[in-house]
Every structure is written in C-alpha cells, then in structure tokens.
C-alpha cells in the first residue's frame, strides 16, 4: 500500500516549500512540489518607473541576493540601450564572484551538511586539536543543559549518516567557519554595492560606485580568505566525502531526474556581449556529446497546476507575453510556482546543469573515474567545483580593474533616458542556476515584468501535459525505508539549493530509463 508523506516545512532552504511523496515498497513512487508563499512583485511593478524593478526584484531573495538586481539591470541595459563600460563589467563580476563563493559555502555546510552528520558523535571525539575540543565541550554542555536547539529535533540518521567522531567534529568546526567565511564574502559585495544582502549599487548601464585603490586592497584581503576556504577546506572536504564515506551515494545516483540540463553565459570578459568565462548551453536526455546553444525564444511557462490564470487558458506563454494573475481557488493547482519549460520540456538548472553543459575537464575526469552518477552527491560536487572555478578567476579581475584606475575608469553609462517603448531581457547564471528577467516598457512605464527563476525551473509543478517538474521527477525511486524519516527526500531536495521566495512569483514516469551521465 502506498503511504503519502507530507514534508512541510522543508527547512534549511530559502522560502516556503512543501513536498508530498507517495511511497510504495520503501521507495518514492510519485511526488508533488509546492511553493506555498507568494508576494506578487511582478504584478506590483506594472505601471511603475522601470528602474524600480532593479530595486524591487533584488528583494526577491535575500540569499540569492544581488543576482536579481544584476539580472534586472541587464534587462534594462538592453531596454535602455546602454553599453556597460569595462570597469562596470568588472565591478559587477567581482560582486557576483563573491556571492558565488559565499553562497556555495553556506549551501553545503550550513544548509546541507546537517543531513549527513550525527551531531552527538562529537561527544566521542578523542583527538587533541584544541579547536575541536572546544566544540566538543560546547556541544556536550548543551546536551547536559538539555537544550540542544536548533540541532534537535531532527530526522534520524541512516546508513549514509556520518558517525565517526573525528569526521563529524571536523565538519561541525567547518560549519562554524563557513558562517564566518560567507559573512566575509558578503562584506566583499558591500565594499562595492553599499551593503549585502540587497546591494544598492548595480543599475542599468553599470554600477554607481566609483572604485578606489584602498577599497580594491580591502576586497583582495577579504576575498583571499574566502578563496582559501573554498580551495583548502570546501573542495577538500567534498573530495574526501565524495571519494570516501559518501561514494556509495554518488555511485547510486540517487536523485537524478530527467538529465535535461540548461545553463546560461556568465562572467562577461569584456563588453562585447560575446566573450564569457562560461558560455553555457543545453543538454537534453543526458546527451553530453551534443551541447546546444541556449535560445531564449524557447523559454515559456505553464500555469496549468499553479495558482494563476492565463487569459484564454493558453498552455504556455513566452515571458514577454507572460501574465501574473492569482487564482488561489484554482482546481487542480498546488503551487505558487509556474512551470518553466524549454522547447516544451522540463530542465534542471544549477551547478550540476552548469557542469553538464560547460563540462570542465578536471571535474568530468573526477566523476568519470569515481563512476558518480547524477543525483544529490553529484550536485554537491559540481557546486564545490564551480566555487573553485570562480575562485581561480577573481583575483585576475581585481588586477584588471586596478590597471584601469589611473585612467579614471567609466563605471556606468548614465546618459540614456527612459525609453518610450522598449523590450529587454537579462540573463544571469546565478549560484542556483539560470535566471532571466523580461521587461516590456511602454509610455516610459513597465507594461509587463516577468522573472523566470532557477528554483522555478527545478521546483516547478506539473505542466499542461501533466509532465512533472525536475524536483518531482528526481524524487522518483528515492529510498524511504521508514516513512517517519524521509531523510533521503530532503537530502535530494536540498541538494538543488531551493530558493522559493524568488521562485514564486511530481505521472508519466519514463519507466526506469537509465540515462548516461558518465562521459566515456
């Protein structure tokens, strides 16, 4: 008999997410993913001065902070016809790079690692590292005082839960260091953007902040600490866990899903609009040998199972034509998320999709050698490697900016008036995946504004053809031996790095199809 399990709230993510799974014979047979909170920024922006969108959409998410302000600015770069000066490009890159590293650190250590450790193992630590002993004392004291919130209560562990005192204590120590490292990364964003979360300095045409050498030195000093953590703690932990205690999880490929991957171009290397550090692309049905270029025209959203109505019940709307009309009583709807589709099909976005479309050699060699298949461990590995990739480039951009300093670099093109009528879209390959904003201006005001957000791609409900979203599909087959303890379900969902606040604005299984992931 099938058991229905409701997981609400899914914690240690951004936003409000509810997951329902149907479990039969100890594995997930069907799944539904619901975003349970909406604000309605897109509807509020209609009729407003276009630049307000930069400020308002920045607030879509405080975790993926800065990417919406950046994406909106890029959409208005196009609508206003602004070419961003080189220094503006570099300053935007430096802020986004800091976000990438700080965010990925937080996702792994603070939001996901708790799913893999038994914190009580710390009590058994027998080593003599003073830092780790201090952590042991602290945790033991909390246990003695009978006050272990927020670490308890939690789901019970399973065979994938780490219980070795040395490993667990080290990870708890890294959990604490990660909180500090991500705060330093946020400071790096604030140096140029005023504050973080919700930097204030990115606008259409570039940035508002005029760089000076003293600030660049400060940025370098701070970001060096973050880079050190990424390369010498984060990446090493992932290599250790992925090739050691968690290798069986990786090889089992739990949580794969459709093997459709999509990523956008990011980190522009100049202002030509043609040269990027990552060029992005589209992989369909796990066919890694045939990466297609991304075509924005093929993006469209369905609201068939979402709490919205489209005029004339159209099955899909392209974002420029998109609508945001709430209907909370809609029959058959179960989410505030729309269902984005590319060429009519669901796609995964995020670090794994980035790795599958960009295919960095070092990373591909490692997963091939270890025979790791797509799933939640692969997502963590790809995320860590992506942070490493950013960390290798960031100092170069600081130096490039420094070399412009003597020339009084232009940071922004601020002489373009609001156009009477224009359209613009912007892409950001954000830490959570491919993000796009779509603005339509008429009479100098916004006529339409649509955001198609990474978590909307991943966490979408079923579409008009009743095809599941990627979370829903990736949950099929996940082992849940104990219905009281669906820990693998939350492990899988958290590996996507859900971010529901910005996402709002699980059957026809392709039976047991095993998709090729490992590159031969």
């Amino acid at each position: 008999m099938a058991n229905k399990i409701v997981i609400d709230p899914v914690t240690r993510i951004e936003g409000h997410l509810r997951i329902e799974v149907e479990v039969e014979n100890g594995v997930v047979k069907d799944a539904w993913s619901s975003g349970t909170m909406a604000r309605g920024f897109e509807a509020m922006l209609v009729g407003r001065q276009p630049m307000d969108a930069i400020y308002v959409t920045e607030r879509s998410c405080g975790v993926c902070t800065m990417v919406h302000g950046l994406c909106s600015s890029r959409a208005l770069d196009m609508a206003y016809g602004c070419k961003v000066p080189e220094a503006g490009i570099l300053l935007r890159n430096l802020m986004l790079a800091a976000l990438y590293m700080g965010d990925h650190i937080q996702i792994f250590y603070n939001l996901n690692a708790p799913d893999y450790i038994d914190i009580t193992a710390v009590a058994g630590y027998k080593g003599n590292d003073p830092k780790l002993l201090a952590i042991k004392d602290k945790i033991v004291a909390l246990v003695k005082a009978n006050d272990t919130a927020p670490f308890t209560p939690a789901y019970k562990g399973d065979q994938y839960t780490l219980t070795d005192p040395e490993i667990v204590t080290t990870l708890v120590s890294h959990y604490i260091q990660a909180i500090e490292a991500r705060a330093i990364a946020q400071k790096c964003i604030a140096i140029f953007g005023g504050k973080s979360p919700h930097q204030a300095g990115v606008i259409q045409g570039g940035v508002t902040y005029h760089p000076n050498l003293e600030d660049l030195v400060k940025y370098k000093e701070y970001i060096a600490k973050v880079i050190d953590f990424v390369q010498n703690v984060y990446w090493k932990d992932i290599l250790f866990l992925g090739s050691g205690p968690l290798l069986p999880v990786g090889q089992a490929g739990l949580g794969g899903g459709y093997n459709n991957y999509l990523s956008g171009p990011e980190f522009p290397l100049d202002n030509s609009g043609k040269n990027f550090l990552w060029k992005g692309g589209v992989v369909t049905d796990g066919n890694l040998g045939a990466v297609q270029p991304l075509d924005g025209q093929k993006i469209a959203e369905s609201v068939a199972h979402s709490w919205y109505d489209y005029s004339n019940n159209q099955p899909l709307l392209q974002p420029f034509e998109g609508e945001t009309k709430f209907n909370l009583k809609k029959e058959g709807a179960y989410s505030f998320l729309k269902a984005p589709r590319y060429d009519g099909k669901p796609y995964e976005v995020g670090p794994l999709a980035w790795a599958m479309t960009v295919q960095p050699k070092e990373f591909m060699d490692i997963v091939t050698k270890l025979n790791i298949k797509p799933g939640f461990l692969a997502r963590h590995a790809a995320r860590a490697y992506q942070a490493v990739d950013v960390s290798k480039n960031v100092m170069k951009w600081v130096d490039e900016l420094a070399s412009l300093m003597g020339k009084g670099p232009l940071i922004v093109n601020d002489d373009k008036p609001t156009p009477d009528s224009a359209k613009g879209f912007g892409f950001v390959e954000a830490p959570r995946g491919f993000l796009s904003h779509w603005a339509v201006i008429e009479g100098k005001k916004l006529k339409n504004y649509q955001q198609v957000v990474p978590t909307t791609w991943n966490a979408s409900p079923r579409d008009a053809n009743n095809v599941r979203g990627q979370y829903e599909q990736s949950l099929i087959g996940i082992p849940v031996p104990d219905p009281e303890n669906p820990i693998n379900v939350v492990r899988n969902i958290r590996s996507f790095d859900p971010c529901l606040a910005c996402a709002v604005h699980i059957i026809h299984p392709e039976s047991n199809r095993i998709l090729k992931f490992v590159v031969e």
Partner: protein
Amino acid sequence: MLSSLAKNKVSRRDFMKACAAMAVYLGLSESFAPKIADAVENASKKAPVIWLEAQDCAGCSEAFLNLTEPTPTQIILDTISLKYHETIMFGSGYVADKALDEAMKTPGYVLVVEGSIPTADPLFCTAGTMSDTNPARRPVVETLKEAYKNAAVVIALGSCASWGGVVQATPSKGRGVSDIVGKEKVINLPMCPCNPDHLVGTLVYYLTFKKAPPLDIHQRPLMFFGTLIHDNCPRRGHFERGEFVTNYGDPSQAEYCLYLKGCKGPFTFSDCPSRGFNDNVNWCIKSNAPCAGCSQPEFYAGFSPLYEKSNDVNLPGIGGVPSETVGTVAAAVTALGVAAHLVGRSVFGKKKEGDK
C-alpha cells in the same frame, strides 16, 4: 556576545570593557555596564527564541548571519536557545512543526518575525500542516497569532515584518506584525534588510532591563532610529552648496548629494551614516546609491519612483513621543528645517554650474 566573553573566561577587565561599550552602543551611560554584565552573566538559562518566517526573502536572516562581533554562532550557542528557525534548524516537516508547537507552550520567549503577513488571503503564505492528522496548509497568520499569546516580547525584524515593506503594495497585501496582533509587545526593527546590530542591541537591552527600549511612534527604538539620515549624511555639505549628482558616471560628482537621483535621506530616520552595514564596511549612500528610505513606513510604494527626485516633502510624522525622547523631538524640528531647505534649494534644482 557578552555572555560568550564571560563564559570563555576572558579577563574580568575586558569583559567589563565590552559591557561598557555595549552600554554606549545602546545609548546609555557607561555606568550601566555592571547591570548589563549582571544580566548576561547571571542569566539562569539561555533566552528561548522562536523565529517565524512569513512573506520573507530570508534577507534578514542572512543579515543576522553576517554579524561579526558577536558572531551568530556565539549568539546561538551561548545567549539564546533558538527553538524554531526554518533556515537554520536541523529538523524538517512534522519534526519542525512539533518543535514549534512545544516551544509555544512555555510562556516568556522572544518572538522574532521576519517577512510580512498577507492580508488579501491567508493562503498567500503557509508553512507546516494544520496538525498531525490534518495535512492542510497552515497559514502563517494563524501561527503568528498563536505564537504571540505566550511571547514576552515580539521583534518585527525588517521592513516587511514592521509594516509590509516592499510587499505592502503587492496583490497579496503584506502587512506588519502590529497590523495583525496589535502594538503591545511589538518592537519594530525596520530596514531592508534589517541591520543586525539593531537586533543584537535590542536583545541585549531587553535581556538587561526586561523591557523594550524607548520607542518612537512607529515603535522603532530611538537609540537606532532617532536621527534623520540627511542630518548626519557625509554628503550634506554638497547639499548645502547645491552640488548634486546628475550623472552617476561623472567622477567629479562622485561625492555629491544624491537628492536629484531620488535619495530619500531627508525623509528617513536611521543611524546608517554612523553604523553602516556589514561591519560598517559601507552603506548605500557611500556606494553612491540613493537612500531608498527603507526604514520608513512609506517604503516602498510611498517612495516610488525610487530613482527620481521626490517632489513632495511630506516628512514622516513624529507625534506622540514619550517624555524621555527629547532627541526625537529635536530631530523633528530639524526635519522641518530640512523641509524648508528642500523647498528653498533642491526642488528648484540649483545645480552647481561648470560641473559635468
């Protein structure tokens, strides 16, 4: 925080020094240091905290995690007992729901709310299930009403929880905590996101004096929101001289007043100019971006369009100030002065000629 200093056995002298610094930080005389020391050292147990997320973006939680002195880890391990916080806690689903229900049974906790409360329909924001046996979505507004009953004090963290903030004008009609449960017990710490220093300062004040700090009519602590940004703005001199930024990219205007670019500093009460963000590494105006007035009840829609010069100079009302709040009255007087300035100068757009 201070208790972690105490427990980590730093020298008595350093600990008292930190308490004195905290006293000054809270706008008190240094003679309060022993009282603060007593409150944080001799607390019999950690203060229980329930942190609800309504229509939020987690930006205020992130801001809290950005604290450097004290660190968030010190606060969570040494000072508070964080019973429920969706972004941080280890438990999920029914385990998390149960933790919340248990925590709400014992009166006397600090309730922190992040995010606005939807008033168009409760179903615009739900978290958890109605009960063990009823899987229906649990509206956050119901959870808030229940959590409010046994709370000793409620901190509405960020502009959304204070009065709806950027969600106020959306179709979901987000409103502040006070709009739902009344003003009693509620301290507003607006801004988008909150300044985490304000949260720590308010917590320490509350733990020391067992009552809310003096508040203005918008229930904001005067120690943080008693002065007008415009009065303490490092660019004020340029305002007086009529030197305004007209092109963000022009290096010769880099330090000029942002009023013509839509700066809401003349209408906004907050200590941003002295406190800054992210360990005071920067703040909006210092990065050459106009203030959006995020600590004011008018934010966001009342200040829209944000990047255009504000035409009307309606200043935020300051009536009904308690007697101990002379500072605010002074600020109100200054604010009126500013209004006169704005009418006299800026509205007529006196821009320094010869600058480009």
